């Protein structure tokens, strides 16, 4: 009898313990599931910001100051205007001298500095304004901007999409579909747009962008990608929308999308819009009626 009671009690305990284990397992499974859902939410990966080693770095403020204050009298690589050509000025003069001269050219000329006096004589005794309001750092930034190419610097997004590598196209695809977020929080293009064969993940509020590269071509698309689609974007403003590298990658992806075999229909429509004289049969690769072209 005692043994029966003990056996029953131990079976009950085992059942209770098993139920406890099952309950704990379910709880843990629930926690793990929630964490798995929330983990990417809490730590979104970041896109390459386009400020990597390969990108040319310069202060936009320096470029703006250069355009505002220097270009009225100086050129960059186009010869003498009112003052000397500034291309290579960092190699011709020492930085300390340039700092002094830009801050107060009249004082340097007055001090009898031979270089300053020679320049004063060479440029018809036209004295450069004293830019006393510019700090040393601002002048250094302008000199750095001139050193790395000045107005000849071309933003990364102006590269033709034909030159994109497979890696850049793939990066554009990831950005388009939101697999990698944009640096400044702009929304993935696929929130509203799709491309041929993109499936249900793409939104359908905006137009299909399969043929957009053919329709607008490289330059217009570059200009378009510099501005937000909407006036309101999370953490994004007009100055910080897409990085040049991101914009180029998206452009490259859209070019690739326009060449997708399934997008032939859209491509032909655009080509026909541009050249109404081309017949549909010619676009589809069939010989026109009569067999003569």
């Amino acid at each position, binding site marked *: 009898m005692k043994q029966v009671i003990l056996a029953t009690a131990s079976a009950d305990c085992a059942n209770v313990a098993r139920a406890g284990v099952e309950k704990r397992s379910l709880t843990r499974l629930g926690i793990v599931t929630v964490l798995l859902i929330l983990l*990417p939410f809490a730590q*979104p990966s970041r896109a390459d910001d386009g400020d990597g080693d390969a990108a040319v770095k310069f202060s936009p403020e320096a470029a703006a100051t250069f355009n505002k204050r220097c270009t009225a009298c100086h050129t960059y690589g186009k010869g003498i205007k009112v003052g000397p050509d500034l291309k290579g000025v960092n190699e011709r003069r020492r930085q300390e001298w340039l700092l002094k001269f830009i801050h107060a050219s009249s004082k340097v000329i007055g001090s009898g500095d031979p270089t300053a006096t020679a320049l004063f004589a060479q440029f018809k005794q036209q004295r450069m304004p004293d830019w006393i309001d510019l700090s040393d750092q601002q002048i250094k930034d302008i000199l750095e901007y001139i050193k790395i190419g000045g107005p000849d610097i071309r933003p990364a997004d102006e590269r033709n999409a034909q030159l994109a590598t497979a890696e850049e196209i793939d990066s554009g695809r990831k950005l388009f579909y939101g697999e990698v977020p944009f640096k400044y929080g702009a929304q993935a293009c696929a929130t509203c747009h799709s491309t041929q064969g993109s499936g249900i*993940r793409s*939104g*359908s509020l905006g137009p299909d962008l399969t043929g957009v590269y053919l329709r607008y071509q490289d330059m217009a698309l570059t200009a378009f990608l510099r501005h937000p689609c*909407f006036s309101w974007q999370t953490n994004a403003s007009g100055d910080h929308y897409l990085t040049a590298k991101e914009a180029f990658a998206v452009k490259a992806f859209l070019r690739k999308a326009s060449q997708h075999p399934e997008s032939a229909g859209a491509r032909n429509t655009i080509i026909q819009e541009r050249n109404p004289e081309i017949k549909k049969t010619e676009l589809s690769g069939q010989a026109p009626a009569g067999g003569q072209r």
Partner: protein
Amino acid sequence: MKGSFLFAIWPYLAVGCLVLGTGARYLLSLRSAAPANEASEAWAAFGRGRLWQAGLLLLLAEHFAGLIFPSSILRWNASATRLYLLESIAFAAGLLAIAGWCMLAWRQLKDESGSWLTQLADSAFLALLLVGLLSGALLAVFYRWGSSWGVMTLTPYVRSLFNGQPTVTSAVQMPFLIRLHVVSAFAALAVIPATRLSAILVAGLNYCFNVMGRPLSFAKRGAEAWLSKHNPAAWLWPEED
């Protein structure tokens, strides 16, 4: 012009109708003997039904979340799985609300209480509600992922309405279904004071005023007790005693 009226002026007119109309109904209710009965009748007419309540609450919660936490919604939607989850819940809530609406409309058809004017207003409100619900469900089908594009286009629009400087650019460029959804929602708000549903708002106002009035009446009673105990007149003019 039409766009700026529908999206810049109409929302304010609709909210104005709701506020002024509810205020007027509240003032009228002060003369009425049984405002509580009206509220319970209104609840029976409009608030009953699990499907209806669940669907409507979920839909409202999702709309308010998009309005108040747009960045969080976008972060949530960054993962395709979570986007599908949110959209599925929202769509299911929409379908539940439509099913609930059908039951509500059936009850309304059988209900012959109230004046013809109230019945007309109730029917108009229900019709506008159906337009809002159907356009919402259809736009979810035809314009995928509204929880993402909505917070980028419609949230700033609604927020601009709150700021008193409506920015209608994004709203007027939306497809017809989305514009219909927005305009019908405001129209439904405008009609509420004429419906029996306003009795619930009036009861809510009554409750709020009662709660707000409690400290005042408490202070009044305290002041009266203090004045009767320390009569300032006796202190100011002792010779008159």
